[in-house]
């Protein structure tokens, strides 16, 4: 008798696995941490109310691998993903990402063509900047990637991201390549330069928050990190600073899984999520810049905030824009392959 009851309980428990989600809902995936918390307040919750849908959240630092799995099995538990534009484009070419129905996304007209692909629209801007410990360097912090490479003048522990994206560009800038001549990238030259700094890299970080953590806890003295993550720990009182100079400006995009069963709702979500107002509101919670540049025009962002946002005209002028086109080309894949050997060897 008890055995039968136990079986029944088990069956109920397992059966819950098959329970379907309410039809008018989507699962949105971003990269976690304070960055995702900011989106929840500024964009996800308001949009859910506005459209009358429910938005489940998930987070993954390597969304790419998960999307491939869901595509291969034909079973989607994600709908909309926030990830680097190059991954959206790569996924689009390989049939993992659905083409966007721009007729249903009127807000996309606010975006310049450079911020759009057939599969994705720009969502928010961030920058890979040179950040450092202010206790360590005081009035004379490193100001360029050349300084980062100069281990004699700037002793101290260093960290870079375990990913070629933006890291390779930084190496070329350190080697004296002018910001407007970065592409197409000379991979041999970049890896030669990276070999020079490799012995001095204490940590190869894998996620934005980890980078902030390393700096805030004093584990490294200077590193490449994402500007919004650095300013977030700065506000928590950590002795850290960064420079916009030679920052590598990038944006993530929104795209929809091809196997998603909720493409219509997902498209409505994408449209609402790049609206001017919610995009401007995002800057109230995080130092990411709006992916919709018209968000700057509606007077919703206080002038005092502009200093901290990566893609204002003033700040963008000092940085280089990372090329989505180059990174989603075969040369970008080649860079990924060479990176694996480089960092492990």
């Amino acid at each position: 008798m008890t055995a039968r009851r136990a079986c029944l309980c088990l069956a109920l428990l397992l059966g819950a696995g098959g329970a379907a989600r309410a039809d008018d809902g989507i699962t949105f995936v971003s990269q976690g941490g304070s960055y995702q918390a900011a989106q929840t307040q500024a964009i996800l919750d308001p949009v859910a109310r506005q459209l009358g849908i429910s938005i489940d959240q998930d987070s993954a630092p390597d969304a790419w691998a998960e999307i491939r799995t869901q595509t291969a099995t034909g079973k989607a538990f994600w709908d909309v993903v926030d990830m680097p534009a190059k991954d959206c484009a790569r996924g689009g070419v390989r049939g993992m990402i659905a083409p966007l129905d721009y007729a249903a996304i009127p807000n996309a007209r606010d975006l310049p063509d450079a911020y759009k692909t057939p599969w994705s629209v720009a969502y928010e801007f961030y920058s890979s900047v040179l950040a450092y410990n202010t206790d360590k360097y005081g009035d004379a912090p490193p100001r360029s990637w050349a300084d980062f490479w100069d281990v004699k003048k700037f002793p101290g522990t260093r960290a870079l991201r375990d990913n070629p994206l933006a890291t390779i560009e930084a190496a070329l800038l350190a080697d004296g390549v002018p910001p407007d001549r970065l592409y197409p990238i000379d991979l041999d030259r970049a890896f030669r330069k990276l070999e020079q700094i490799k012995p001095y890299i204490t940590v190869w970080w894998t996620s934005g928050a980890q980078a902030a953590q390393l700096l805030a806890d004093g584990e490294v003295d200077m590193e490449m990190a994402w500007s919004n993550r650095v300013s977030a720990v700065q506000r928590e009182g950590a002795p850290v600073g960064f420079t916009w100079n030679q920052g590598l400006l990038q944006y993530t995009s929104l795209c929809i899984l091809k196997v998603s069963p909720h493409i219509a709702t997902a498209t409505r979500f994408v449209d609402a999520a790049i609206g001017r107002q919610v995009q401007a509101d995002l800057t109230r919670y995080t130092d990411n810049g709006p992916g919709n540049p018209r968000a700057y025009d509606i007077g919703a962002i206080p002038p005092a905030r502009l200093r901290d946002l990566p893609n204002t005209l003033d700040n963008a002028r000092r940085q280089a824009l990372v090329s989505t086109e180059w990174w989603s080309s075969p040369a970008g894949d080649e860079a990924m392959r060479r990176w694996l050997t480089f960092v492990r060897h």
Partner: protein
Amino acid sequence: MRAASPARIAAFLFAGLVLLWLILPVLIVIPMSFSDSRFLTFPPKALSLRWYHAYLGSSLWLRATRVSLGVAAASAVLATAIGTAAAYALNLSNGRAMKLVKLVLLLPLMVPIVITGVGIFLVYARVGLLATLTGLVLANTMLGVPYALTSVLGALAQFDPAQEMVARSLGMNRPRAFFAVTLPQIAPGVLSGALFAFVAGLDETVVALFISGGRYQPLTKRMFTALRDEIDPTIAAISTMLTLVSCLVAAAVMLNARWSERRRGVRA
């Protein structure tokens, strides 16, 4: 018995230091969870319940906790039933074939967990069990069987099979003889096998990284991602609670062991 020679004292001291090192993590994590700062400064400058609130206020963490507890409990029950049956069968004969079968059943403990994870991922990708509760429960059952198996085998080794024979000669059929005579006597072994399988299921991370997703992510997968991404003392708060649960289970195992010793004492 022997005089306390200097070498002996030194060896004891050394052992004491090693033991201190062994429990150091537990001693660190508990105070950390009451820190009021986001950073990993130890000892914390001021105390607060901020991170417990963060945990209890997060639907993601709470859902993950429910998934973990449910999966660990369900797979412990299944693994114990399957493992006990297998142990009983293995105990019937001592042939070469049985030795081989036993080795095969112990394989989950020998194969590196990443390879196991990749393998289960392959199977699940074909049959659509990725990111399901059923998938998690099955995988953890497989991983839990060896714990139940070894534990029950240990108990069976101390059990005199003649007793079951007697029961059967008195007219009980085999299942009845097993449940009425054998099971009560090997119960401590079965129980500790179940507890081991439960804790192993609660702690399992790597396979979950490969096969879980969406709504059904166990606590450990969330913690791993958090440790890689956003290290804050929420992890310490969760850790403290997890350690507490584990200690309770450990206490249960020890009480269970004492209970079985006493029973054996009565029999002798």
